[in-house]
């Protein structure tokens, strides 16, 4: 079979495949009309049902909560819930379910629950508390979030996010997060990109750290009480689905290499986003998509994988060995001004370039929001400048973020108080002093709005498999607003899953969970063992990390800040080549019966490559620009993203068949609280 043929097969007609699902699907037919274009109209087939409560989105959550079935407190301990991941969503869900009386088995590949990558969020957490008289309200929050997501998120879920945001702050404060306070003792807030009110609660530049540590503590409290069994350094490698329900997971103990089967009545995945598929990203070294991807391969639909947010204020790549594009908090854009020299051949140091020869392009193009435009717009604008040759720095791959004016206006001390730790981090990383030389920043892969598709109750297309936090998809549409990710993880973990998982459990038998020797468990275990053996079969070859690096390069080129039909098609071919080469040439040194970081990496990269194919497929399929998904062919004359609500106002939820073919299911989106409108930050 030719490579080209296989690429085509990757995105193929669903005819002849048996999905068995009542859910709707649109079908791609690459032969007749070219990939990504010819869709059988999404309207003529039954739609994917997100089970959103009928009627007013603002009261939907209240009504749904009243409908939820409950489990008698005495019966709760008879149910075992498996929670994978101990970030904000995972820790929260595990702790809250355990508080309610369920038995929880919680898994993390880290050595300690506190290390989950939620820890690295800097700027803050939004909440629609609307205490100030700056015009904020629940409705405003919903508008900002839905509009920020370019009308590709689910409105009712956003309304729930807004409603629960109020007590998230209360709860996180109570369990140990020391939020910044005003001198009067009240909680302090600040502004973030994409909004014009001040609703972001923070703890210096370490909000994620404080929330994460507080949540991990709450989890450990339940471990101490015996209601949670915590498995550290244990990685989920497969999902066990029996009788159409998620009933367990297969794990590998990273210390001993032992494979284990764990079964329960429901499984919650809170395993984070897949941004590290880009190799250079703002994510952690170990962040990976294996749990969600394996669940996907067991039947959980993957929603809009092409929606990837590039953070506009990441450090540029400046050398081969640089391991990541560290994030500089968005809050820097409150006082820093972004500019490039007007002359592409500018050679002078930034301080010597006169005002008239600088282009403050965000302030020029978006006077209303200026430097605080949403991330997708800021990233794209930076990309445009860099591609036009006006980038700065030795590799001309970054733009300036300049604090000169702010320091003149407010004084160095005020700036140091606001951003001291960030400036220090920048100085560490680059050796340059941002007090005197403008920072150099560039868009870096950051947050993935896509993730496992779930309904309003956060259940995926596999019964009993729930998803929370960045691993899911519901809230952020095609672009996430700053400080909404900590919020969505907290709301999912503490205030949604603890209600919706019991609703599911109430309909499930209280008998002991699936036996470890059930055929489905044995099959999953064998599959994991087979994959590991296959990864380890080559005696020599290339390190998994090298493939990861190449994967990232392919994606940045083909499916980055902006994409086009041509770049995506090239990427698809390159990915197929990479995948083939990976399996022929990947070499895992050492053995599998002990700590082996090469083996861990190899498995993750293998899954990343498959996921990347789906990302590119989705990007190619979606022939419109929306939020962070910017297709060059679909732009206004001013270069802004051109949405196509007539044809694309839906969530693409992908299924991948056992043979590796991708089938798109459609969840239509309706907007009533926030009417569809063109996003305009000018």
């Amino acid at each position, binding site marked *: 079979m030719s490579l080209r043929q296989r690429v085509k097969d990757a995105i193929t007609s669903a005819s002849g495949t048996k999905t068995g699902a009542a859910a709707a699907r649109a079908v791609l037919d690459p032969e007749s009309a070219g990939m990504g274009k010819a869709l059988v109209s999404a309207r003529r087939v039954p739609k994917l049902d997100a089970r959103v409560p009928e009627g007013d989105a603002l009261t939907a959550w209240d009504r749904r909560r009243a409908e939820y079935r409950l489990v008698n407190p005495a019966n709760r301990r008879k149910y075992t819930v498996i929670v994978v991941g101990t970030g904000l969503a995972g820790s929260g869900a595990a702790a809250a379910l355990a508080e309610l009386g369920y038995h929880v088995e919680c898994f993390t590949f880290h050595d300690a629950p506190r290390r989950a990558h939620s820890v690295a969020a800097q700027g803050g957490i939004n909440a629609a508390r609307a205490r100030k008289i700056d015009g904020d309200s629940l409705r405003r929050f919903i508008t900002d979030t839905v509009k920020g997501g370019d009308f590709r998120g689910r409105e009712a879920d956003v309304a729930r996010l807004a409603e629960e945001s109020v007590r998230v702050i209360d709860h996180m404060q109570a369990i140990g997060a020391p939020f910044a306070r005003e001198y009067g003792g009240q909680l302090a807030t600040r502004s973030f990109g994409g909004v014009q009110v001040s609703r972001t609660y923070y703890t210096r530049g370490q909000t994620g750290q404080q929330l994460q540590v507080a949540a991990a503590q709450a989890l450990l409290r339940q*471990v*101490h009480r015996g209601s949670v069994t*915590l498995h550290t350094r244990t990685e989920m490698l497969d999902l066990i689905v029996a009788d159409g329900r998620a009933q367990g997971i297969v794990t590998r*103990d990273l210390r001993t290499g032992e*494979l284990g*089967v*764990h079964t329960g009545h429901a499984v919650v995945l809170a395993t984070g986003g897949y941004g590290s598929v880009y190799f250079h990203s703002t994510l952690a070294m170990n962040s990976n998509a294996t749990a969600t991807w394996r669940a996907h391969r067991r039947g959980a639909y993957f929603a809009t994988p092409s929606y990837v947010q590039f953070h506009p204020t990441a450090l540029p790549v400046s050398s081969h060995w640089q391991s990541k594009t560290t994030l500089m908090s968005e809050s820097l854009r409150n006082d820093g001004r972004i500019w490039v020299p007007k002359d592409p051949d500018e050679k002078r140091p930034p301080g010597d370039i006169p005002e008239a020869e600088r282009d403050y392009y965000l302030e020029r193009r978006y006077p209303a929001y200026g430097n605080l435009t949403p991330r997708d717009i800021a990233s794209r604008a930076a990309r445009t400048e860099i591609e036009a040759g006006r980038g700065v720095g030795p590799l001309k791959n970054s733009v300036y973020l300049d604090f000169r004016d702010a320091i003149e206006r407010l004084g160095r001390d005020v700036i140091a108080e606001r951003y001291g730790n960030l400036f220090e981090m920048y100085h560490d990383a680059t050796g340059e002093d941002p007090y005197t030389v403008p920072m150099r920043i560039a868009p870096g892969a950051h947050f993935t709005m896509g993730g496992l598709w779930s309904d309003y109750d956060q259940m995926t297309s596999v019964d009993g498999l729930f998803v929370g936090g960045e691993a899911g998809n519901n809230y952020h549409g095609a672009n996430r607003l700053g400080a909404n990710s900590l919020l969505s993880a907290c709301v999912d973990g503490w205030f949604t899953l603890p209600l919706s998982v019991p609703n599911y459990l109430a309909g499930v038998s209280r008998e002991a969970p699936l036996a470890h020797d059930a055929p489905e468990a044995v099959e999953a275990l064998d599959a994991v063992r087979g994959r590991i053996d296959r990864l380890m079969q080559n005696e020599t070859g290339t390190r998994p990390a090298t493939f990861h690096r190449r994967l990232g390069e392919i994606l940045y080129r083909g499916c980055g800040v902006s994409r086009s039909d041509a770049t995506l098609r090239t990427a698809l071919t390159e990915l197929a080549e990479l995948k083939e080469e990976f399996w022929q040439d990947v070499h895992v040194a050492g053995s599998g019966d002990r700590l082996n970081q090469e083996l861990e990496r190899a498995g993750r990269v293998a899954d990343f490559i498959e996921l990347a194919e789906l990302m590119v497929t989705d990007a190619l399929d979606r022939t419109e620009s929306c939020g962070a998904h910017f297709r060059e062919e679909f732009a206004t004359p001013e270069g802004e993203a051109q949405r196509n609500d007539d044809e694309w106002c839906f969530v693409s939820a992908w299924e991948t068949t056992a043979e590796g073919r991708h089938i798109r299911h459609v969840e239509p989106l309706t907007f009533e609280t926030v009417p569809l409108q063109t996003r305009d930050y000018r």
Partner: protein
Amino acid sequence: MAVVDAGKRSGAHQPGAGAAARPRPSTFVLKQVMAVTGVIFVGFVFVHMIGNLKVYFGAESLDSYATWLRRVGYPLIPHQGVLWALRVVLSVSLLAHMWAAITLWLRGRRARGPHRRRRPATFSARTASWMLPGGLAIAVFVVVHILDLTLGAGVAASGHQHADPDGTVHAYANLVASFSRPWMAVFYVVIMLVVAFHIEHGVRTLMQDFGATGRRLRKIWAVVGGALALAVVLGNALIPVLVLVGVIS
């Protein structure tokens, strides 16, 4: 690759794994024992130093002070009653302080494990690492000092005069006789330096052990500790030096 049952909790976080191995008495109690006895010693050394200052006012002053020490409280308290009470308190404190110190030192070594760090760099780390050897040196000195100037046995100077039957003490003469031996004078001076560092670090550790977290309090405390250490070394170590050079004779 063996398959493990979830029931075996492979990779499970072990709740309170070390609880069974908890040592008794607790480290916290031992630290408090060290702290309280340390306060007693600092108080004693300081008062002792004040008493020693009487040497600068001549033999009469020191001898009468020494004699008074044996008679204080009489007739309510028998002769040497207060002195013996102090001796008992100090001896018990000394034993408790040393026992706690050695126990803690052993625990520290065990907790550190076989791989030790070389070159602790800071002043604080140096003084801390001298606490145990310094403390042992001080213990040796206490024995020498008692033999030399209290009991007048063993290492005492050949001209040592025991107390008269009427209770009169020849402290001044004994002191001059002892410190006229250069080795004893040098030993005394060196030990006073050790005592000073021991006090300096001890007082800072006291502040930790007594839970002083206020930033201003901590600053004052550290300064007071340093001043006490300096006072003790100056007040005491000058005496043998002055004896050697002949100012006190």
